[in-house]
């Protein structure tokens, strides 16, 4: 016998002890447990400051307030799972509100038509991002930075300042309710239903797999172009939906409003335990992250301190969340090796 195997190898498996397995289980789920605990803590504080926090009304209000961010962050979550990032949703949201505010008219068929067109536009723009990233092998950050600028510019050209008008029926969407739950809550339920369906489809699995290990996914037959078209296309669709929802709340088009959702959408996802390196996390975490960011706003309000504290609190929460999950990640990796 001349040679000993030449591949680098690790040690043979040794089954972990029971406490270690428990620890592993916890560390594995740390990225979702941390935001849950944070939200509970925030709610506890909020609930102790004000009455009626644990009622359906509060849920309806908070969900209505958070829904734009939730929709935008849903797209971002899918992109982050893939291991990318999408800054262009800012431009798409602005453009969506502007088109809606200038084209919807008095309601009825035109509204429906233009709503569909806006969503289609989101899909096309997103797929364009995906195609550029794949075919020219460009960085998602730069490509979507550029398309963000292009979309935001287009929005400004269409409507230089906030304005336009929306049909009154359209704006009544937020005030609708059924079984005590306001329409945004039903929207959220739909969103979660979509997610639990989508993440189990072959495409959903492939997106997560590609973010987890691109090379392995391709070796297993995943097409990079198809995956990026899906990923960024969906992100564009959700940005468009965010824009449509936003107009039901503001009743106007705003060519600059989208930028307020770019980084918060990433923040909500990251607070919710999504890894920027791809493959880890899910929409439930992101939704919790969006609620956390919204409740912070409420808290600042009831504490009757300056609203300027809100960004500070968001930033600190973001850092705590990401530090905690990166530490958990580290010790979980040490557990493994």
């Amino acid at each position, binding site marked *: 016998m001349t040679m000993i195997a030449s591949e680098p190898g690790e040690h043979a*498996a040794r089954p972990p002890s029971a406490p270690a397995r428990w620890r592993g289980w916890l560390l594995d789920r740390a990225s979702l447990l941390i935001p849950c605990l944070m939200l509970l803590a925030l709610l506890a504080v909020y609930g102790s400051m004000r009455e009626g926090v644990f009622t359906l009304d509060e849920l309806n209000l908070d969900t209505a307030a958070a829904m734009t961010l939730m929709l935008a962050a849903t797209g971002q979550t899918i992109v982050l799972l893939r291991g990318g990032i999408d800054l262009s949703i800012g431009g798409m949201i602005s453009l969506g509100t502007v088109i809606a505010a200038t084209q919807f008219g008095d309601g009825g068929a035109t509204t429906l038509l233009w709503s569909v067109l806006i969503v289609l536009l989101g899909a096309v723009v997103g797929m364009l991002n995906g195609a550029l990233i794949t075919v020219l092998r460009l960085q998602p950050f730069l490509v979507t930075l550029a398309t963000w600028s292009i979309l935001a510019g287009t929005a400004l050209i269409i409507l230089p300042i906030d304005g336009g008008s929306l049909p009154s029926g359209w704006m009544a969407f937020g005030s609708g309710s059924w079984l005590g739950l306001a329409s945004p809550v039903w929207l959220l339920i739909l969103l979660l239903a979509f997610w639990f369906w989508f993440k189990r489809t072959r495409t959903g699995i492939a997106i*997560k797999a590609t973010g987890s290990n691109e090379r*392995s996914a391709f070796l297993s037959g995943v097409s990079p172009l198809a995956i990026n078209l899906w990923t960024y296309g969906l992100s564009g669709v959700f940005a468009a939906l965010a824009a449509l929802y936003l107009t039901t709340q503001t009743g106007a088009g705003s060519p600059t409003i989208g930028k307020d959702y770019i980084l918060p959408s990433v923040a909500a996802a990251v607070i919710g335990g999504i890894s920027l390196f791809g493959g880890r996390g899910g929409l439930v975490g992101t939704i919790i992250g969006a609620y956390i960011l919204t409740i912070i706003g409420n808290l600042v309000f009831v504490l009757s301190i300056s609203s300027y504290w809100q960004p500070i609190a968001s930033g600190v929460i973001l850092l705590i969340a990401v530090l905690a999950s990166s530490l958990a990640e580290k010790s979980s990796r040490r557990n493994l090796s």
Partner: protein
Amino acid sequence: MPDFLEALSVAKRYGGIVALSDATLKARSGEVHALLGENGAGKSTFIQILAGAVRADSGSITLGGERFAVRNPEEAQRLGVAAVFQELSLIPDLTVAENIFFRREPLSPLRTARAGAMREATAELFARYRFPAIRPDQELRRLTLAERQVVEIAKALARDPRVLILDEATSALAPRETEWLLGLSRDLAAEGKLVIYISHRLGEVRRIADRVTVFRNGATVAAYDTASVDDDTIIADMLGRQMERLYPERRNTTTGRIALSVKGLSVENRLADLDLDLREGEVLGVAGLQGHGQRELFQALFGAARASGAIEVWGKPRTIRSPRDALSGRDGLALVPEDRRNHGLLLAKSVRENLTLSVVKRFTRFGLTDPKREAKLVDDMIAQLRIKAGSPEQAAGTLSGGNQQKVIFGKMLLTDARILLLYDPTRGIDVGTKGEIFTLMRDLAARGYAILFYSSDLAELVHVADRVAVLRYGRLAAILEGAENSEHQILRAAMIDTRAA
């Protein structure tokens, strides 16, 4: 019985490099067929062609009497050829079952993957082939490398292939799993499948293979019934006649001075209480089966792994917490790392920048780098090591493997460290460069360097090292020198418990 798989005169070139010139392999269904050859003999290219990952330039392949010309892995799999490569194709964040059925998930009417069905099918597959205990719903990243290897095998088997190719599949496995895989290969053959088995371990090959085909330099040189051929013949076929020219004359240049002394070195549970002395002018070999602590030893000495124990360098106690601590000039330690591309070289940067990365301070005056001094260092090293690069500005990643390794050697020598840690420095390198590296090692030893040298190729240790330290389960099993330093004795010490004696 007619041959089920017949590959005739298959050839493949990558740019100017000939990977395969004349590969021929004939194998029947119902047999385990071993494919043997040195690193770089063309085995990998050949099986990648079979698996559809690479397309042949010429030659003909038939499978079950029909022409076999596939363009991608999917097609190969559809025709019943599944391969388990050394590079795993698994997804860390999916479960075991999801990995096994990735891209082929059974779907519900809602087009979602049926998790329960996948788990059951996985459990069934595991039971049918008596797989080692792995939970189908566990996430892959929680598994050890050995378990992942097993999952990769399951992924291939789940497609119920007619031909299963196993490329060094046992290299990451522990003895018990290795036993299982050997048994599995026999069982599959008994079911009428063809198993193509690639391994460096002749012992395994002898136990399970019905026939062997030997590759050398991209061509088939021999094919035998395993029972009718002895090991020496196979080895001679694999090596050709290059043996004598490969290794330089070994003169003992060891002095009495101890360059590196290690006492009670431990790394987690991988390396336990190791004592070792490396002397000036000595090449000390390190041997052991895969994963018995060699890597941890090198990492610990270079400050890349946390370790406990005492280290003395040139007679002085030293604490080495980072590579930066290790690379402290003439009294330091320099490493040729195992993973050339991820640890050794900045592939996109020039040969010059790579060579001098660890010694920028040497040509910095008043805070500014001096291009002339740098050029001198670089030119000298390129000349000394005969690095074949168009110019010092050529990107390191565009060099051949052998020349990349020379750049790493040059980078290490420029640091002036006189204790060198060489981890498998000849892996995947052409024979000519191997010879140059061995000559260089002996020259350096003669000039008073102290060299710690791990190789996965035992022959290298026997022919180049003065003494060989054999590790077994993270402990020093033996130190062999003189007549004792033979492949036979090394393997004995690596595989058989000698501590009791």
